[in-house]
């Protein structure tokens, strides 16, 4: 019944965990506002992640900046609007644009989201949720397969921040992500802020969530800041806002993952209310210090279980 061809079935994640030199490197989102400061600062112990869609124009300053960044640093290409989690067929034009970016910039990491953003011809510019069922699993696995075949390499799929659940869901997010990785050969991008936000919003323990997360498939970690609101009952509702420093409990969870898995390429995201470069750079340095503390831990084999 599963109808998805396995992509690079033999240890598909090995390249992320062993051959890439990124394992012990911390990176940040790349923002054009920081371009000059980054080049002035120099140094190469960092990598940069860009939202793929911002570089899908024909030319001009965006490509010139990214070319220069890529010449000096490893780059992670992070797709935001493939709509992999949607029921509609993927947009072939968008896949082609994504493919040509992968060919042009040869990113060290390529990732997308377990979410949808386009439906009925409208682009909603948000990472919208999906129910976790056998039917959606089959559909999403097929979408991942389609993207991986188009770009000729596996992608990392990011766990979402969630605010609600679907009554029709029949499996947990962790079970869904594990099955997706197994079926499609994709890796996972563990966003620890999303994990913390979802756990808080869904009323379960982040450490329990983490214990069930398929860590052996993780090829990159995201850290970011979140905002606080309240739900209809007046209880805490966390919002994945990417507009401030990483919260203390997220750092703690991060350290526990690295302590048990060894260094994994880690990225601090910051997308709005942008600080000066030194502030963001210091966040990456803090992540780097945690990776360094656990540098002696041998990353375990991708399928040995972490």
């Amino acid at each position: 019944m599963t109808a998805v061809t396995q992509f690079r079935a033999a240890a598909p994640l090995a390249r992320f965990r062993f051959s890439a030199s990124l394992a012990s490197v911390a990176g940040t989102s790349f923002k054009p506002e920081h371009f000059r400061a980054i080049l002035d600062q120099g140094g190469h112990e960092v990598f940069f992640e860009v939202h793929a869609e911002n570089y899908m124009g024909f030319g001009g300053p965006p490509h010139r900046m990214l070319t220069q960044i890529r010449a000096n640093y490893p780059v992670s290409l992070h797709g935001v609007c493939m709509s992999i989690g949607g029921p509609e067929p993927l947009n072939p034009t968008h896949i082609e644009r994504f493919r040509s970016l992968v060919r042009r910039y040869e990113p060290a990491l390529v990732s997308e989201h377990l979410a949808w953003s386009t439906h009925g011809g409208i682009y909603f510019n948000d990472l919208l949720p999906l129910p976790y069922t056998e039917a959606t699993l089959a559909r999403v696995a097929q979408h991942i397969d389609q993207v991986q075949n188009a770009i000729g390499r596996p992608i990392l799929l990011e766990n979402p921040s969630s605010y609600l659940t679907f009554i029709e869901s029949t499996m947990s997010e962790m079970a869904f992500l594990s099955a997706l990785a197994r079926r499609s050969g994709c890796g996972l991008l563990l966003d620890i802020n999303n994990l913390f936000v979802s756990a808080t919003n869904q009323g379960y323990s982040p450490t329990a969530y983490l214990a069930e997360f398929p860590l052996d498939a993780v090829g990159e970690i995201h850290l970011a800041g979140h905002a606080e609101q309240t739900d209809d009952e007046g209880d805490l509702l966390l919002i994945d806002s990417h507009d401030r420093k990483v919260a203390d409990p997220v750092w703690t969870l991060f350290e526990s993952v690295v302590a048990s898995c060894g260094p994994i390429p880690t990225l601090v995201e910051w997308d709005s209310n942008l600080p000066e470069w030194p502030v963001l750079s210091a966040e990456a340095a803090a992540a780097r210090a945690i990776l360094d503390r656990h540098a002696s831990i041998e990353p375990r084999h991708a399928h040995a279980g972490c």
Partner: protein
Amino acid sequence: MPAAEATSVAAQRLPIYAANLARGLLDPDHPIPAGIVGPNGKRPVKRYNVYRNNVTASLVDALAAIFPATRRITGVEFFRAMARFYVRSTPPRSSLLFEYGRDFPDFIARYEYAQAMPYLPDTARIERAWLDAYHAADVPTLAPQALGAISPDLLANVMFVPHPATRIVRSRFAAVRIFAANRQDGPFDRIEASVPEDALVTRRDLEVTVRRLPPGGAAFLTQLLAGRPLGDAAASAFNGAPGFDLAANITGMIEAGVFSALHVGDHA
């Protein structure tokens, strides 16, 4: 082919959740969709509204980033209210946000509360053209000496290839001055808004530039960009503006980077 099987299996059971959620995302009066909950039976209203807010606010932010001068003119609150109406009536059809808002200037022209600022739509048109020029393909601009290499008796037959960044925005108002004054944060002298200005938007290498075209310049350039030969374009410019300075116009346009190439067409 196994993939086809997956499609058919999935297609039978999947279409509900996205359509169900999507319906209310841009409509604040739409009821909260069925089938979603918080943990332990908690209500989904504020939870669903997180997505609602994300969608509208992020698209309003996208417009604010594309139209900063328009926003400075109207003020932030006015702009956000206007943009919210636009977002809800005209959400993006493309996932590339830098393509969004092509018809926002037309919306502004119809927007009831913006009628006191008749120069606003053209200012927004220049901003939209600016962003198109910013993302346009990297193509070398025509070398200034290129025209000098053409034999004088063939000049009238010269046709130009527009650079992909080149845009013209014609206005009955001082849209270029208003645009330039409001694309920066500093104070500026009073602008007489009723003086017509035609904007020329170009990009040499990385720098997008917005200039005022001299009298007759827009008519002349519109002809050239449409592929008409130089002789015809000059004639139509002289018709509209007897004082039209052909040499200064053509030199200025080549220096601005309006064209990427030229070739000599057949005799008309």
